[in-house]
Structures are given as structure tokens and as C-alpha cells.
């Protein structure tokens, strides 16, 4: 389906809107996100409880739809605790720093093609940049500052460690995420989201072309948005709420929650935009020519968006939280090398396909990459295998030792055949005597 639709906006179409259109767009996006949060919270709770055979919120309003509104109001009316020791300015600033970039990050997500908005032809997208994706990543990175500052300004060990932990986690997964996009750019040849969507129109959805990238992205998505199974930043069980320990209640806490929700939204939005064809209609519908014109695409976008979000919720419902070292080693030791190998492979293939000139060399290089990657992987695999076996063996040995000699390992176990257990000198006290 390489036919190009005139409605597809490109970078050239941006930066032309009059200010009022811009403002309208901004307000629309803002409202969309705010309502989205309200709805999303409710939706998530409802879905999970359904999955867990519960009712979930069903008191406030029909189906408990107003539940999150109620929560919001409650938070507004709770006491605003302001611990004595905190670093005042940063403590207050942190939630803001967390939430604002989260809003901005979403602004590059395209909702649809060129539409007629109050008589103005404009792409249905807040903004697009030559470096749109980079911008999104940057915003994600900035909100990390919020997390760290929140932890740091709280002056409490839990908060500090929590902040550092979540920062470490987020940056680690940011690398893998950033790498997972490279393959896309290799195909799309641009960083602007609208043009990437366009490219998917021409070359097909990248989710099919680049499954590994997609898988990696999805994993990183959880890490970035700190959702279960990677929600260690506020792993209550381990560090009492992490960096937000001192933001016990009130609107500051609400802002932090909001920021995290927005990250989840952004993650889904980006997934849809970069991999799932953006606002493009899925296959059977795309047969109909009108599918990708006018306001219809918004619908397709919403469907994909909600589905992605539901998937995230579904995962939350079904997976436990991983251990921190597992989290990190997954990010550093698996995702990054696999990513790099994959990128090289894609590049080699791409080189063979599109570039003029000598192809054999390209093919050879591609082969070299594949072989090399496999070789390294196998080597590591065997090494790991040996390590595992060795570890297992020694554990068993230890166990053996313990079983046949109880006092080994420094844990004195009283021998079970001591006389008094058998009550040798046990003196029967006849009952009922006085």
C-alpha cells in the first residue's frame, strides 16, 4: 500500500497555525489528558477488579464513574502535610517538574491527518518537530529530575533511596527504549512523528516489520512508566512509597500520580504512533478509502490507544513485581546488547535493500553480524548455563551436608534424641490431687 494520501501531513504542514488555533489545540489536548486521567484511573481499577472477580468502584455515580473525581476532591480537602526538615523550594517544585514535561511529552502524538478545524486546514496534532521523538525522550528524562529532586528534598532516607532507585531504573530503560527506536528511523528516515506515521502508510506498520524492536519497546514502556511489573520506585513493600514517601497526601501527591499516569499514556501513545500505524485504520477497514481521511482516524487512534492501555492494565493484573537486580540486569544485560545486534542487522538488511551500489559486501557484512551475534550469545549462554549448574551443585552439596550433619553451617540444631524429649525423668503429676 505505497499509494500516498494527500491528507498525510508532513513537517512542512506545521508551524503554520494561527495562534488561536494553537491555543484551541492546546486546551483540547489538556482537557483530553485530564479527562483521560480521570477516566483512566476508573477504567484501570474497574478492569483489574473485574479480572480479580471483584466489582471495583461502583458507588460514586453510575458504575462508579465519578470515583476518581471523588478521589480528586478528597485529596484537595486533605491536610497538606509539610514536613519540617524538607528543602522547601525543591520540595514544592518537584511535583511540578514531574507533571509538566509529562504533558508536553504527549504533545507530539498525532491524532489524525489534516482536518478542517474551524475552517482552518491543520494537522490533528499539537505539534511536530524534526526531532519529535527525541523531544519525547527528553521530556521523559526531565521528569526524572522531578523524581530525584522529590527524593532528595525530602531529607528522608527512604525518599532519597527511592528517588535514586527510580531514577536509576528509568534512565536504564531509557537507553533500551532509545535504541529500540533506531530501527524505525532506519526505515522512516525521520524523527518527526507525523512523517513516521506517513512512512507506516507506505511501508506497513512497523510492529510487523520490526517485531523485536516492538517487544523491546513494550518492555521498556513498563520500565519507563514504572508500572507493574517494574513499579519498584514506589514498591510499597520495599521502601514505603519510595521517593514520594513524604508527599503523603493532598494535591502534591495528586500531581505525582497524575505525572505517572501521563507517562503511561505517553507510552501507549508512542507505541501506537511508532509501531501500530498511528491513526491509520487497521487492515480490513483501510480497504475503504475514506478510512484515513477527515475525523475518522481519531477513532482508530482511540481504539488502539485504549487497547494498549488495557494491555498495560492487564499485565499489571497478571504479573508480580520483579526484584530490583533482576530489573536492572534485564535492562542492561539483555535489552541493550540484543538491541544493538538487532540494529546492526536491520541496517545491514536495509543497506542491501535500498542502497545503490555493491550489494554482496552488504550481504556479507549482514551475515557476519548475524554469525557474530549468535556466536557471542551462545558463548554467554553456555557460560551462564555452567554458572547456573555450578551454583545449583554447590547449593545441593550444602543441603546434603546440612541434612546429614545438622550442626554444619553454624546453625546449631539440638540433637533430636536427647533423653528429656523422651521424658525419661518425666514425672507424672497425677491430676486431680491437691
Amino acid at each position: 500500500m505505497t499509494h500516498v494520501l494527500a491528507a498525510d501531513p508532513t513537517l512542512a504542514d506545521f508551524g503554520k497555525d494561527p495562534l488561536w488555533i494553537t491555543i484551541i489545540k492546546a486546551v483540547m489536548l489538556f482537557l483530553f489528558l485530564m479527562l483521560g486521567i480521570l477516566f483512566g484511573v476508573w477504567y484501570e481499577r474497574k478492569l483489574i477488579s473485574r479480572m480479580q472477580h471483584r466489582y471495583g468502584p461502583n458507588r460514586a455515580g453510575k458504575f462508579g464513574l465519578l470515583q476518581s473525581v471523588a478521589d480528586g476532591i478528597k485529596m484537595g480537602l486533605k491536610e497538606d502535610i509539610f514536613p519540617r526538615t524538607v528543602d522547601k523550594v525543591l520540595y514544592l517544585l518537584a511535583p511540578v517538574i514531574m507533571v509538566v514535561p509529562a504533558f508536553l511529552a504527549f504533545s507530539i502524538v498525532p491524532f489524525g491527518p489534516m482536518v478542517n478545524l474551524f475552517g482552518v486546514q491543520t494537522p490533528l496534532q499539537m505539534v511536530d518537530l524534526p526531532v519529535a521523538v527525541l523531544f519525547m525522550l527528553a521530556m521523559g528524562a526531565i521528569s526524572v529530575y522531578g523524581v530525584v529532586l522529590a527524593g532528595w528534598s525530602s531529607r528522608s532516607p527512604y525518599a532519597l533511596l527511592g528517588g535514586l532507585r527510580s531514577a536509576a531504573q528509568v534512565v536504564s530503560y531509557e537507553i533500551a527504549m532509545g535504541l529500540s527506536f533506531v530501527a524505525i528511523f532506519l526505515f522512516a528516515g525521520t524523527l518527526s512523528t507525523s512523517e513516521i506515521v506517513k512512512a507506516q502508510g507506505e511501508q506497513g506498520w512497523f510492529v510487523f516489520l520490526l517485531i523485536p524492536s516492538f517487544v523491546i519497546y513494550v518492555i521498556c514502556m513498563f520500565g519507563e512508566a514504572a508500572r507493574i511489573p517494574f513499579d519498584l520506585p514506589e514498591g510499597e513493600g520495599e521502601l514505603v512509597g519510595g521517593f514520594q514517601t513524604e508527599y503523603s497526601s493532598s494535591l502534591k501527591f495528586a500531581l505525582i500520580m497524575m505525572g505517572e499516569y501521563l507517562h503511561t499514556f505517553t507510552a501507549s501513545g508512542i507505541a501506537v504512533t511508532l509501531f501500530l500505524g498511528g491513526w491509520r485504520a487497521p487492515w480490513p477497514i483501510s480497504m475503504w478509502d475514506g478510512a484515513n481521511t477527515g475525523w475518522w482516524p481519531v477513532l482508530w487512534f482511540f481504539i488502539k490507544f485504549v487497547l494498549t492501555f488495557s494491555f498495560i492494565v492487564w499485565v499489571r493484573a497478571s504479573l508480580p513485581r520483579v526484584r530490583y537486580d533482576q530489573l536492572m540486569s534485564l535492562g542492561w544485560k539483555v535489552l541493550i546488547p540484543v538491541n544493538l545486534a538487532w540494529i546492526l542487522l536491520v541496517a545491514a538488511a536495509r543497506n542491501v535493500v535500498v542502497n545503490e551500489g555493491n550489494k554482496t559486501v552488504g550481504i556479507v557484512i549482514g551475515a557476519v553480524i548475524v554469525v557474530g551475534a549468535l556466536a557471542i550469545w551462545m558463548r554467554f549462554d553456555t557460560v551462564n548455563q555452567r554458572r547456573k549448574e555450578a551454583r545449583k551443585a554447590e547449593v545441593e552439596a550444602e543441603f546434603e551436608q546440612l541434612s546429614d550433619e545438622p550442626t554444619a553451617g553454624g546453625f546449631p540444631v539440638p540433637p533430636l534424641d536427647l533423653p528429656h524429649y523422651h521424658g525419661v525423668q518425666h514425672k507424672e503429676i497425677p491430676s486431680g490431687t491437691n
Partner: protein
Amino acid sequence: MDLYVPILVLAVLAGGFAIFSVAIAPFTGPKRWNRAKLDAYECGIEPTPQPVGGGRFPLKYMITAMLFIVFDIEIIFLYPWAVSFAPLKNDAGDTIASGLGLFALVEMLLFIVTVLVAYAYVWRRKGLDWD
């Protein structure tokens, strides 16, 4: 430049909202003073006094930060490479910018291999392990 105007607008909007809600929080809620409540929360025990500018933390985090810098920079180099790797075609389908092609592939191969060398070193030196 005016590509960035919408972002500015949105930033103003979101920022206004955030600052507003931070600002009104103290007034909307009640105030019931309680010394323990205003202490740093440490599961109820007396809070350990924290030095100004946060306490000391494991070096591990610093190492992670350094690694992050290195690899993030690598990404910085991957993006332009990726973008200008393939020849750029316009809507009519004819090339308006030839790709870097084989050369770029080889160079990037060298680059990534070099990075992997450092990566292997870090790995072997337990730089990536969290115990």
C-alpha cells in the same frame, strides 16, 4: 522557531495548572499540628538526622549514572546515522538525498563494536550487577 510555540502554550497551561494546585493545597485542607506528623517518616522510629543536601548513598548509583551517560551519548550518535542511512525519496519517489550506505554501515559497525568492548569490560567488572 514558531514550531515550538504550541509547546510553549501547552507548557504555560500545564505549568499554570500544576503550580496552582501546589499553591492552593495548604488552604484547602485543615491544619492539625502534630510534631510526629511533621517528622520524616521512618516507619515510626525516630528519624535519622539527614545532612544538608541529602545523605550519602551507594556508589552504585553513580556508576549507573556514568554508564547511562556513555550509552545515551551512543544513542545520540545512532539517531542521525539512522536518519540519513537510507536514501531520502520525495513523494514522487525520486531520490533527493542519497544515503550513506555501505560506508555508514561499516563505520557504525566499528563504532558499536568499540562500545561493546567497553560494555564487555564493565560487565566483567561487575559494573552491571546489583547484589
